[in-house]
């Protein structure tokens, strides 16, 4: 069976998404879903209002399969099942003992004579102190090492795309890499996969460098927040997908069988 691909990247300067199905050598029914995904911040020059900077902080790669299902243990960005993590434990034990003995003794005596008669004064004094200290310290630190996947597998045929430093997405995340392996569902009439790159509005950072001739005063926080939604909604509408409801579809790549 052969497949045709339709890639829709209306904002290709921000997000580029391509997909294809490649037949596995060893079996006639299994394919690799290969994906190209590049995301980077960019600017949109708007003649009327100014320059808009767009940065995506977090996105979801979502795949809708028809007549295909994901083969077990083939998802990209999925660690070993069972939650295996590496723990490093550092232990430090300090035991210190201090013993101090300080003895002080004093004695004095004096004898004097005066016109009124002899005067005598004698005294003897002594003191001693003993100091004993013991310290025991136990320090323990633990570090857990976890692998970071910029494209991490989630449930429901989704992958979360993030940067390790939490900053704006700016990388070639997949370059014709296998997202997963799929097998054909025999009874299905149509076979295909639609891959979408989606981001919630709150994960898209928008900054407007305004044209002072049109927007004379800097926007308040309210105006800025509303402007961001307006821009997000408009960018979403370029993808031609469903009506805007808080998330933007940046790109879509559809694979369908020719027959």
């Amino acid at each position, binding site marked *: 069976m052969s497949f045709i691909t339709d890639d829709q990247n209306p904002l290709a*300067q921000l997000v580029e998404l391509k997909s294809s199905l490649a037949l596995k050598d060893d079996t006639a029914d299994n394919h690799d879903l290969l994906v190209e995904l590049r995301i980077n911040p960019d600017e949109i020059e708007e003649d009327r209002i100014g320059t808009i900077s767009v940065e995506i902080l977090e996105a979801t790669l979502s795949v809708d399969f028809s007549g295909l299902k994901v083969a077990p243990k083939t998802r990209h960005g999925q660690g070993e099942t069972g939650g295996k993590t590496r723990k490093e434990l550092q232990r430090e034990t300090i035991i210190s003992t201090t013993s101090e003995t300080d003895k002080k003794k004093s004695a004095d005596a004096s004898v004097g004579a005066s016109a009124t008669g002899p005067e005598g004064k004698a005294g003897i004094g002594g003191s001693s102190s003993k100091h004993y200290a013991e310290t025991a310290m136990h320090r323990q630190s633990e570090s857990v090492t976890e692998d970071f996947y910029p494209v991490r597998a989630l449930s429901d045929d989704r992958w979360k795309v993030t940067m390790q430093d939490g900053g704006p997405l700016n990388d070639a995340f997949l370059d014709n890499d296998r997202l997963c392996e799929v097998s054909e569902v025999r009874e299905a009439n149509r076979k295909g996969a639609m891959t979408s790159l989606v981001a919630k509005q709150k994960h898209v950072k928008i900054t407007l460098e305004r044209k002072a001739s049109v*927007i004379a005063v800097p926007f308040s926080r309210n105006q800025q927040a*509303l402007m961001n939604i307006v821009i997000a909604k408009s960018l979403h509408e370029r993808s031609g997908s469903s009506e805007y409801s808080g998330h933007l579809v940046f790109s879509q790549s559809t694979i369908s069988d020719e027959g």
Partner: protein
Amino acid sequence: MKDSPFLSNALSEAALAGIEALAAAPQATFQEQAKLAGLVPAKDFRHADLRNIDLTDSDLHGFDFSGADLRGITGIRVRWDQTTIFDGADLSGSIFASKIRLRTFFNMDQQANNLLASVAGQSWSAQIIWAAENLRPTGKFHELALPITEALFYRARNDEFLQAELMRYLAPRISSREALYDMLTAAISDDPRAAVVIRSVFSILRQHQMTRNAQIRQQALALVKSRNPANQEEAVRFLMRNLPTREEIAAIRTAAEGGDGFLESMYVAEISRLLGQVYELVTRDPVSNATLSMKTVLSSSELKLIARRWLRAKSSRYEKDVNLPLVQRKGSDHYYSADEIEKKAVKVQVLWSNLKRVGIEIDVATDVDANVSIIET
């Protein structure tokens, strides 16, 4: 071949028109601005980043904020109900946090809900007694007393005395700083008719050393737009007497310029207080002792009266005056020459000139009676 490697003019005509409409309405409420921007309340606010916005005077019926980031939202007189959707929204530090937390609690606990209905139906005095008894560790309903008293507090919106009393019992028993903060934020947001509640809120904030909390200050700033002058007064005092930022002073100034005379005088009084007692003296009417408004033109006679008042207050020998600020002193009845008064008047004008930088413009009219001697008065 590519037309251009760069992205340009990607926004729709409707979006551009929406942004231009937004730019033209900086003073409109959030709800009005959203409408101008062409946004649909039932859909467009899902998953939105709305952190730290001000919702003052907005009607949020039918808004869907599912999954939105609403942290730190402030505002007064915000209208919302069951049709306002907050599913999965982050409400931390917002005016909604406390009430939504309670709503969720009572939706899940029928026993608590029944008990609340029963207590809320009682007289105000019975409610106070119930709260006092059950907030104690030995109270019969101690485990439910905190959420029920908090719910009673919000329900008593039209009974400020009951609210203030319930707050008095509640505040010391809320162990989490965040929960206390959320309750106080919500209380300010209700913009009560009597200032007693707001006064209690600011007092609790001071007791808990929460006066520097940015969100609380933002909420106090929203209260400056209250329709209740007593609440305005409390808010302006709270902000100006707890290390105001330049932005806060500017915001209060803008509100004062666009408000009535009361807020103007409050602004002048608090700015003068910040600058010191000499400024307090030169911004008072020399006869009535009332604080002058932001734009005042005085006669040269009044200028001289202020100058003489300053001289007299400074040289006062009354025992009771010693520890009083200049404006409260009775002042000496010493005679000052025209020359001494003229010299002091020049100093008064220097202080007035300094006040221009903070938007307070007190000037002297070039009147025909300029030569009237103050000494004769």
